[in-house]
C-alpha cells in the first residue's frame, strides 16, 4: 500500500489548501501554524523564515517517513513557508491521515515536536517598529 508523503517549501505565506483525503483513512487532521501578532509582547509585522536546502527537505522527508512508520499513518503532507509571512498568515501546514483518531493526533504532536528539534528551519522576527534590516539582503 502506498503511504503518500508530500513535502513542500513555499515562498511566502501558504495559500489555502483543499481538503486532503486518503483512501481508507478514518481520521484526517490538519495543523496550521499562523504568525501571531506579537513576540514577547512586541508587535510583529512578519516572521522571516529560512531553510537550508536540500537538507531541510531531506530532514522533513526523513521525519515524515519515521512518523508514518511509528504511528501507522496512511499519509503525511507538510508545507512550510520560506521568506516573509505577515501576521495572521499561515507559515506551516501539516496534514496527517490515519485509520483512527488516536494515531493521527499522537503523530501530529510527535511530528511537530521533532520538527522543532531537528529540521533546519529558522525564523527571524520583523518587528512592526523597526525598518527592514539584514533580512532584506538575504
Amino acid at each position: 500500500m502506498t503511504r503518500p508523503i508530500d513535502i513542500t517549501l513555499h515562498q511566502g505565506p501558504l495559500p489555502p489548501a483543499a481538503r486532503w483525503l486518503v483512501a481508507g483513512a478514518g481520521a484526517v487532521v490538519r495543523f496550521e501554524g499562523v504568525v501571531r501578532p506579537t513576540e514577547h509582547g512586541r508587535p510583529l509585522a512578519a516572521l522571516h523564515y529560512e531553510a537550508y536546502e536540500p537538507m531541510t527537505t531531506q530532514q522533513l522527508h526523513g521525519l515524515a517517513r519515521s512518523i508514518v512508520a511509528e504511528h501507522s499513518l496512511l499519509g503525511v503532507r507538510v508545507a512550510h513557508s520560506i521568506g516573509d509571512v505577515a501576521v495572521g498568515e499561515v507559515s506551516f501546514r501539516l496534514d496527517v491521515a490515519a485509520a483512527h483518531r488516536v494515531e493521527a493526533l499522537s503523530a501530529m504532536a510527535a511530528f511537530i515536536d521533532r520538527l522543532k528539534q531537528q529540521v533546519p528551519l529558522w525564523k527571524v522576527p520583523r518587528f512592526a517598529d523597526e525598518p527592514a534590516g539584514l533580512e532584506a539582503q538575504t
Partner: protein
Amino acid sequence: MNLTVKVFGPQARLVGREEVALTLDEPATCRDVRRALAATEPALASSLDASRFAVNHEYVKDDHRVAADDEVALIGMISGG
C-alpha cells in the same frame, strides 16, 4: 586549512553575516570548528552549545573530521513550525 561555516537565522543576525571564515590546524574535527567559532564570534557564545553541525547536509557528531572542501553548516536556534 581554511573553512567557511554557514550560519542561519538568528545566528546569522548575531554575527552579521551568513558565513564565517575560519583557519584550522589539520586534522580538524567539528569540535575544533566549534572552538574556533566560539573564539571568532563571541556573539554565538550563548547558542553554540545547543547547536549542531551538518557536513554536506547531514548531521554529524563533534568528532567528525572536516576537510577544506566540505560544506559545513551550523544548525542552531532552529524554530520551524
